[in-house]
């Protein structure tokens, strides 16, 4: 290759920060301030669903954090891209320049480096503090839940249950209803032998995974009446993309009406399990397989593994009286086995999650009643 005579490198000096630095900075700052004001004061419904009229209490704090990050995120993006583009253009090599012009040989500026390390750090510390406050509100609500509901995710539908020791509502594939303005706790789990799903309501800004073998929970207060989409946001198999349901936020009065109606329907439709054919020995084997990881039969209520001990359950002075202050009857035991339990003692999965057939339940009841 033909070789030009090498010339001495010629440094092209720069005056100040370079031509037009201040106007460019001012323009970018104006853009950033405008964006910040828009983010703070205009409704962001085009970005976040129902931002101007939040549907849950957590949506408020999450949106606030989102806006905080957007203000600074947009500013950083604009400054970085803007300066890179501006520097690249203003310091471009001119066509008539000498072959060997080189840039200003600056390889350090300790003061500048100090500040661009410290400022982002401070910003991140502020963000950290804000996040922790919001996180605490969302994860550890101070008000006790007025209602506890349960979501059981299956391939490929959600099942909603309204448990409680004295009459539960079981609404498979139906709509989920929540009362407006009441703090609710939603316990999320995955069906027996099922896969991971996620329960997501975009308007609530909350999601939680339904993990097999675990009960996860969401705490929130719905703040706006309406119908929302519940969607599964963790890939769960072939029909993942049609795994949706509706969530209806009612007024408390409407909700109570709906719940009463649903209870009646559930009571009418659920055929009772015949307990008469239960075989205690079969129940014992099944208990060892399915229940013994959490329940001991070596002692009474206080002999806890995960759940309470079940020795002489029908006649255990330490055992809480479940129904009307009386000792549990076989039917009460059946109900817990069918519907699961969520309450002060802990949480136990329902029959779907435990994979119990009618006969299994009858056998288990027979076995538990036989323990003296």
């Amino acid at each position, binding site marked *: 290759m033909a*070789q030009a005579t*090498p010339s001495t*490198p010629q440094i092209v000096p720069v005056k100040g920060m*370079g031509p037009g630095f201040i106007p460019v900075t001012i323009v970018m700052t104006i853009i950033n301030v405008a964006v910040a004001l828009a983010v703070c004061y205009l409704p962001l419904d*085009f970005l976040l*669903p129902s931002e101007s009229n939040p549907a849950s209490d*957590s949506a408020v704090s*999450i949106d606030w*954090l989102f806006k905080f*990050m957007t203000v600074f995120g947009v500013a950083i*993006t604009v400054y*970085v*891209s803007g*300066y*890179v583009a501006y*520097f*690249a*253009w203003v*310091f*471009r*090599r001119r*066509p008539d320049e000498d*072959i060997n*012009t*080189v*840039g200003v*040989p600056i*390889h350090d*500026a300790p003061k500048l*480096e100090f500040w*661009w*390390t410290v400022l982002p*750090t401070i910003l*991140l510390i502020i963000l*950290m503090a804000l*996040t922790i406050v919001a*996180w605490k509100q*969302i994860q550890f609500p101070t008000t006790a839940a007025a209602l506890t509901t349960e979501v059981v995710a299956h391939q490929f539908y959600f099942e909603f249950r309204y448990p409680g020791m004295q009459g539960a509502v079981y609404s498979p594939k139906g709509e989920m209803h929540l009362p407006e303005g009441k703090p609710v706790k939603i316990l999320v789990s995955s069906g027996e*032998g099922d*896969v991971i799903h996620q329960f997501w309501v*975009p*308007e609530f*800004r*909350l*999601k939680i*995974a339904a*993990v097999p*073998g675990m009960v996860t929970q969401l705490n929130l207060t719905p703040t706006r009446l309406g119908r929302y*989409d519940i*969607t*599964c*946001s*963790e*890939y769960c*198999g*072939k029909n993942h*993309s*049609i795994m*949706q349901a509706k969530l209806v936020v009612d007024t408390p009065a409407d909700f109570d009406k709906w719940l009463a109606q649903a209870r009646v329907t559930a009571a009418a439709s659920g055929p009772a399990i015949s307990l008469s054919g239960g075989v205690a020995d079969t129940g014992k084997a099944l208990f060892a397989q399915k229940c013994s*990881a959490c329940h001991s039969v070596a002692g009474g209520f206080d002999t806890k593994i995960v759940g309470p001990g079940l020795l002489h359950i029908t006649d255990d002075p330490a055992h809480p009286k479940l129904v009307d202050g009386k000792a549990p009857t076989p039917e009460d035991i059946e109900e817990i086995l069918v519907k699961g339990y969520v309450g002060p003692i802990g949480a136990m999965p329902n029959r779907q999650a435990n994979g119990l057939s009618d006969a299994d339940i009858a056998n288990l009841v027979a076995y538990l009643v036989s323990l003296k």
Partner: protein
Amino acid sequence: MDVAAHPVEEHAAHDHIHPAPEGFIAKYVFSLDHKVIAMQYFVLGLLLMLIAGSFAELMRVQLWNPAGTFVQYQTFNQLFTMHGTVMVWLVLIPLVTGSLGNMVMPLQIGARDVAFPWLNMLSFWLIPVAALTLFASLLFPTGAPAAGWTEYPPISIQEGTGTVFYTLAIIIVGISSTLTGLNFLVTIFKMRAPGMTWTRMPLFTWATFATALINLFATVALSAALLALFLATAFNVPFFDPARGGSPVLYQHMFWFYSHPAVYIFILPAFGVISDVLPTFARKTIFGYKMIAFSSLAIAILGFTVWAHHMFPSGIAPWLQIPFMILTYIIGIPTGIKIFSWMATVWGGRIHFSTSMMYALAFIGTFSFGGITGVYLACVPVDLHEHGSYFVVAHFHYVVAGGAVTAFFAGFYYWFPKATGRLLSEKMGHLSFWLFMIGLTGTFMPMHWLGLEGMPRRYASYEVFAKAFPDAVFWNRVETASSFLMVLSVLFVAINIVVSLRSGRRAGNNPWGARTLEWMISSPAPYYNFKKIPIVLDKPYDFTQPLPYRNLDDPNQDPYPKPIEAVIPRRAPVAT
């Protein structure tokens, strides 16, 4: 016992030159030469990139309509699984660490080859084996794996056959990647030319060093996770089965412990490329050499401590969320230092707008944007909303396509002359650059607000979402249309390569006037790189001083870089 007399040799080991191999097989197929292996990685990577890209295009066509009927749901699931798997493990890792790392790193430190050339060859040949293993799943009626590239159990165990092939293939990739990491670490530690102290290493080598650490240590953990998944799928071992005491969340911990650092396997070499390309085309020393070098190392180490930020809504204990969030925020600081240092490098330079520089400049913008959306996702409450939505898809495509792939192209246009001795067409280079950038923005930018509005990822049909957010159809069509621009751009790159190899201009030793060691020898680099091992006297990237190297084999070696004009296209903004 016989004790042989020590054969006394006058020269040190590194002066020992073997003859170049003869014959096609030894030269081009089972070659031990790091430069040939690099090109093998490149060809394979580009081919698989086009295949995996076509999977993405099939998905985009399906999403043209909310109730897409182009493919069936299960096919769609297989498409996104294969797209992710192939892109992450069979495209990015081979291209970024395999191809660029192998081509450039030994040249930059003044070595004749990597420490274990045979192992290097093995690392490469494991990749096609892994690719064949993965695609072999298509021979079975259940077809390709369809549980997402993360293959969370239990869904992956439910999928069965596909998962077995997936795990086997990726374990093979893992072994290959681990061996590469080991090889590079030993090379960088032990085979630097005399005088090449740690603070005189070019920044690409620094980045490769940090990457090799991750390659070596994290990839083994991935192999362990996948081995456990393989055992669970094929032999019913209950690691992840809650009914028998296992936990599906355990897999996520094991998987992300690797796969978060894996992100840095792509992005750290990208940082290195940018740190090498910017000074050359800005004709100016890199700003903050030490800060950039050490921040690579800091990122590599911190990368091991943040994995659970992928799992905030996955049922981990709430108290675990905060430390992982804080550690993730901390990673933002070294990353920010790098970005600001690059900005300062551009400041006050004499910028040459070569294709490589265009990609490098664009990288600063796209990558910092992708990084900022990463901060959103690290913030626990906001992540509770964004997790599993298109926002995540947008974020990691900005980091991977806008970061790693963009930087890869910067490096590709930069080092192609060194690899082949020919220059690429700058005109076509600029065309492919603009197509790629427009395509990137059009495809991934709208995903941000689609995700925020509530569009979950991995949906073959978004009918319900489109009812709640009617604009979704419009934006999805924008994305589909734009995505084809990126394919076009990659095709242009392929055409550019073919044209250049047939009739490209000769590059000469140092077409860009760069100041790192690889440019001081002829192009393409000779079989043994350096006839005499060079001696390094000073830092790289100093454009105002004579060359900081001695002992170079080229008698016509210029004390100053050659004029850069030879390669500036006529129509480029600075053309004369």
